[in-house]
């Protein structure tokens, strides 16, 4: 997942970056399935891996390509800016493994284990909040794409 994210950040073509982002989502979904979060995994794969990738690719396809000379110039500038990232990541890995500490895990008793029960019984108000956020998003997109008079 880290490597897919690195690919998304480092690649010079936007289309490849969008594909790498979809790959990151797919790997995150696999981790979710392995940890037992199947419902969240399905959401992640269908929405983040599917819908958001489609949105990204649509936006990229609506923009035109740069001329070759300009592209090569910007690519060189990008490489100069992003060359430090692998070294920063490597340094972070070394630091993290130097300060490594054991973390105590406590398992609380009597917690709700059913996702549906948690969603409908405990966090019902959150669902209304999510619906409101979605409607606000639809309204925002409508405003953004409204034709000029």
């Amino acid at each position, binding site marked *: 997942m880290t490597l897919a*994210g690195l690919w*998304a950040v480092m690649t010079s073509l*936007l289309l490849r970056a969008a594909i790498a982002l979809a790959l990151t989502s797919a790997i995150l979904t696999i981790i979710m399935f392995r940890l037992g979060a199947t*419902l969240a995994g399905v959401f992640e794969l269908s929405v983040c891996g599917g819908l958001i990738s489609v949105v990204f690719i649509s936006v990229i396809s609506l923009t035109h390509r740069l001329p070759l000379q300009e592209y090569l110039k910007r690519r060189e500038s990008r490489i100069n800016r992003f060359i430090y990232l692998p070294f920063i990541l490597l340094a972070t890995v070394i630091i993290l493994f130097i300060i490594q500490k054991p973390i105590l895990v406590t398992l609380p008793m009597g917690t709700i*284990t059913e996702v549906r029960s948690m969603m409908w019984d405990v966090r019902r108000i*959150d669902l209304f*909040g999510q619906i409101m956020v979605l409607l606000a998003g639809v309204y925002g997109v409508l405003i953004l794409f409204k034709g000029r008079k």
Partner: protein
Amino acid sequence: MVIDFSQFFWLFFAFVVLILIEGFYCIMVTYNLMRVLIGLEILIKAVTLLIIVAGYLSGQMALAQTLVITVIVIEVVVVMIAAGIVLGFYREYDSLNVRNARNMKG
């Protein structure tokens, strides 16, 4: 074969930190608005992974899943609106370079 992931919490934490660094670096260094969005997406992926691992370790996977679903819903709305803004910006300036935003007039 069943793997006990609680043994690997530190490894997951390290991965989350690395992905967060990738996202922050991408947002800080780039001038392309689409890449800023991609960096934001990478940050959200790291947070999602952290919530799931924390839910797994604390035994509250149901709560973690509902939180992740909320995060995904908000993520979709943010990306949709941001993509619309990026397209509007592109139509106005014929470029995705964030430095052109300095010429914006209210």
